[in-house]
């Protein structure tokens, strides 16, 4: 049976962050995961705090206030300082990674305002260099460029909405597609943009149609293998700021993050095994000694000194709610906090209502160890990070990446024994 210093369960942003930090810290890391996680689905930005519930301009400040008001929020586990440290680390890793000089810009002090694919102004703290040019706090007009073969991005709709928010914007559609396909997704286009000939065609067509003062918005597909080159070349050719707008999955910027972190993990000797589900653990004296896993119908065991659980919560089946409304954390059967009692409402009838189930997750103490209903630590050597944590509705707050990144980073730091406990001293009980 294999043995590793640390087993990280999950390959989303939290899992990969923890794994890379641990591996570069010298630990022998094995990552087990059901699949490749959710980085391919998000915007590819690092959203720290967008709404609390009003729109946030200065995330670090707002974070501190949030933690004061709501000590059960998972940000309390890391504090503004913890987020800053994780963000700095992330930016350095990406810049030094296989896609360099592609890099992230921004920080936790100020949010940018970036347009979404329907044209809403969305606050975001740390973004790829390829997106920063879209900051709506700048006044310049925008030409939103779409492609007929890309059904996942509608330029005139985005432009229309921007217009209703006081931004001067218009949309136009190009009829260019990789291999002339009628239906191509963002990844197929991203590969096409890697080809200089395709870029030349796009630039050629656009130069005739772009206005003097307009910056150019593209769907987020400016290059898969070399986004820095694609983006800077387009800016040069078109002679104006060019920026990407995140749209429906597959998220090319998200895939870039994944590829970068996987590359860094490989470089530091970490191993990844996919198609594996953790089904339980052997334990002794408050420590997990082995994880029981399953690949298809086949059961295996793997030993470890430490376990970082970053299984993604409800969205990925890390936490499941069955038809009798019982919640279960599926890897280690950890208690799930924040689930209403039987017979109580779990969800409310309005889609944008506050839903009681929204913040359910695993409760942990100040050192990310899972706790029971009385706040007692369940395992010494298991840490929980990412979307499985109780206490937040990240899709509403626009805080998912920040939470995953900072808690994944903190989990690694704790295991490496490198940092003091941060954030509020109070243990995190049920939400």
């Amino acid at each position, binding site marked *: 049976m294999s043995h590793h210093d640390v087993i990280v369960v999950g390959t989303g942003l939290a899992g990969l962050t923890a794994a890379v930090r641990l591996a570069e810290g010298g630990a022998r890391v094995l990552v087990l995961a059901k699949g490749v996680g959710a980085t391919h689905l998000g915007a590819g930005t690092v959203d720290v705090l967008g709404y609390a519930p009003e729109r946030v301009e200065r995330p670090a400040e707002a974070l501190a206030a949030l933690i004061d008001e709501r000590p059960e929020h998972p940000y309390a586990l890391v504090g503004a300082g913890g987020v800053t440290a994780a963000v700095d680390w992330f930016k350095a890793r990406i810049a030094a990674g296989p896609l360099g000089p592609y890099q992230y810009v921004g920080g936790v002090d100020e949010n940018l305002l970036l347009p979404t*694919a329907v044209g809403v102004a*969305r606050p975001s703290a740390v973004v790829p260099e390829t997106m920063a040019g879209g900051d709506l706090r700048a006044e310049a007009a925008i030409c939103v460029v779409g492609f007929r073969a890309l059904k996942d991005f509608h330029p005139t*709709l985005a432009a229309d909405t921007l217009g209703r928010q006081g931004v001067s914007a218009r949309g136009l559609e190009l009829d260019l597609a990789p291999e002339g*396909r009628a239906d191509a997704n963002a990844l197929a286009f991203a590969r096409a943009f890697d080809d200089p000939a395709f870029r030349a065609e796009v630039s050629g067509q656009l130069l005739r149609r772009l206005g003097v003062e307009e910056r150019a918005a593209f769907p987020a597909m400016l290059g898969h293998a070399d986004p820095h080159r694609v983006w800077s070349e387009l800016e040069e050719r078109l002679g104006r700021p060019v920026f990407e707008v995140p749209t429906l999955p597959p998220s090319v910027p998200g895939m870039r993050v994944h590829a970068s972190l996987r590359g860094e993990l490989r470089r530091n000797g970490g191993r990844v095994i996919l198609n594996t589900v953790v089904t339980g653990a052997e334990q002794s004296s408050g420590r997990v000694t082995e994880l029981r896993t399953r690949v298809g119908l086949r059961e295996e065991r793997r030993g470890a000194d430490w376990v970082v659980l970053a299984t993604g919560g409800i969205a990925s089946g890390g936490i499941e709610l069955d038809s009798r409304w019982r919640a279960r954390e599926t890897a280690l059967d950890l208690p799930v906090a924040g689930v209403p009692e039987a017979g109580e409402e779990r969800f409310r009838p309005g889609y*944008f209502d506050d839903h009681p189930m929204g913040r359910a997750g695993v409760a942990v103490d100040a050192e990310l160890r899972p706790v029971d209903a009385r706040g007692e630590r369940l395992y010494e050597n298991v840490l929980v990070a990412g979307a499985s944590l109780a206490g937040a509705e990240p899709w509403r707050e626009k805080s998912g990446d920040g939470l995953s990144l900072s808690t994944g980073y903190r989990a690694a730091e704790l295991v490496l024994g490198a940092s003091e406990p941060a954030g509020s001293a109070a243990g995190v009980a049920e939400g």
Partner: protein
Amino acid sequence: MLVIGGGATGAGVAWDAALRGFDVILIDRADLAEGTSGRFHGLLHSGGRYVVKDALAAEECVAENAILRRVIPDCIEDTGGLFVTTPDDDPAYGDRFLEGCRAAELPVEEIGVAEALRREPRLNSRIQRAFAVPDASIDAWKTVWSFARGASEHGARILPYHSAIALHREGHAVTGARVRNELTGEELDIEAGFTINAAGAWAAQIATMAGIEGVGVVPGKGIMIAMNHRLVNTVINRCTMPADGDILVPIRTVSVIGTTDIRSADPDELPVTQAEVDQMLDDGERLVPGFREARALRVWAGARPLFQDEKAEQVADTRDISRTHAVVDHRERDGVDGLLTMSGGKLTTLRLMAEDIVDAMCKQLGTERACQTRDVRPPGNEDGEGYSLGSRLRRREQTLQDEQLICECELIGRSRLEQAMRRRGSANLDDIRRSMRLGMGPCQGGFCIYRATGILHGVGRLDGAEAADSLSGFLQERWKGVWPILYGDQLRQARLDDWIFQGLLDVEHLPEAEEVA
């Protein structure tokens, strides 16, 4: 003549009457088939459900089942049906069932349990008896539109989004109605020599407009849950006296478990309760073990129009009210000419209901015109081959490289969407969506709704504010059908959709939506 109500009943009446040469106007306050017809489980009854308790209803089903297969074959999938005796049922009922089938001339065959399990491997292996009958599943929306289109090809005018706000009386006759165009707000008067009230669960409200009281329609609320894929490919019925949750219907890509039967006050207020959901899941588990682990897609409620004339006796259980239909002749009952109300009935007998009420109308008018609907096929049934589940998949093979797939779950291509937009000039995105079931597959619109909204906006059919409204409206409407069954895989999907709509697109902060939320 004026037909009030554009569900199965009204569309059937319009078709029948138009074929007989009447000049028909049909109105509905919303889109066609938006009421009960759009919310039923899709079962084309063989009649087996009624053979023991309601022989007349059974005989009607037997006859109409055969006729509909002949005239609207492409709206029907020949799934076949099984009546099974579950461990909770009395095996002796099976004998009464067989007798009843024979009496009603319903083709039935008792097959062995092993054979039943071979045909349907997901069935409860502890069933004791199984009977095969000619149940089928029927696409109500397609049926209604087929008849409506047929009627309009024969000169009828079909007016969705026109609600009746008053009925005109001249003396003791109904001579037409005042209607309001819900899209424009405009009001107009329709003169009609005869009016047929085919408003189903809302029929009493219409009758009241003619000054007629006490036409009792009991809205019998029934909830149904669509499961994400076809757990069975044959209609499964419990072989027992009609009860809740005793039917599992494979229809298109889903299987629907139904239904409950709860007397309601208002056909527009049909809340889905947790108790009902639990009951349906348990009922499903009885037929298909592991049901509760399967993915529930959507839950909704419809109101059966059960006729209970207050002038007749009160009946306790709505299920004891006869399921067959009745023409309420207001000349006899209330001394009012020129108005007939259709009460009760089920979708399986829509053609017969239409025939009966148009016959009654002819009688009152003193004319003799023969019904032709037994033999004439309305448009949309030219293939004559019956619906097959794989048809969309097969069709898509031909356009794999040429056409963008907008709704991937339901295999709806871009040209089909654009065609629907062109054909239904007055319709909004909601109607088009509903009619094509866009966003009603497993992803619950996570991908296709943004695409469809973008396309419609792009071709100028929606402006930005309308697009924003439509997007938010969709999210709310979808949520309504999902939150009572949000567990397991569907909850995972909902989370992903939250990430897409809120996290990625941030629709909550759309300029229009902010005013609404």
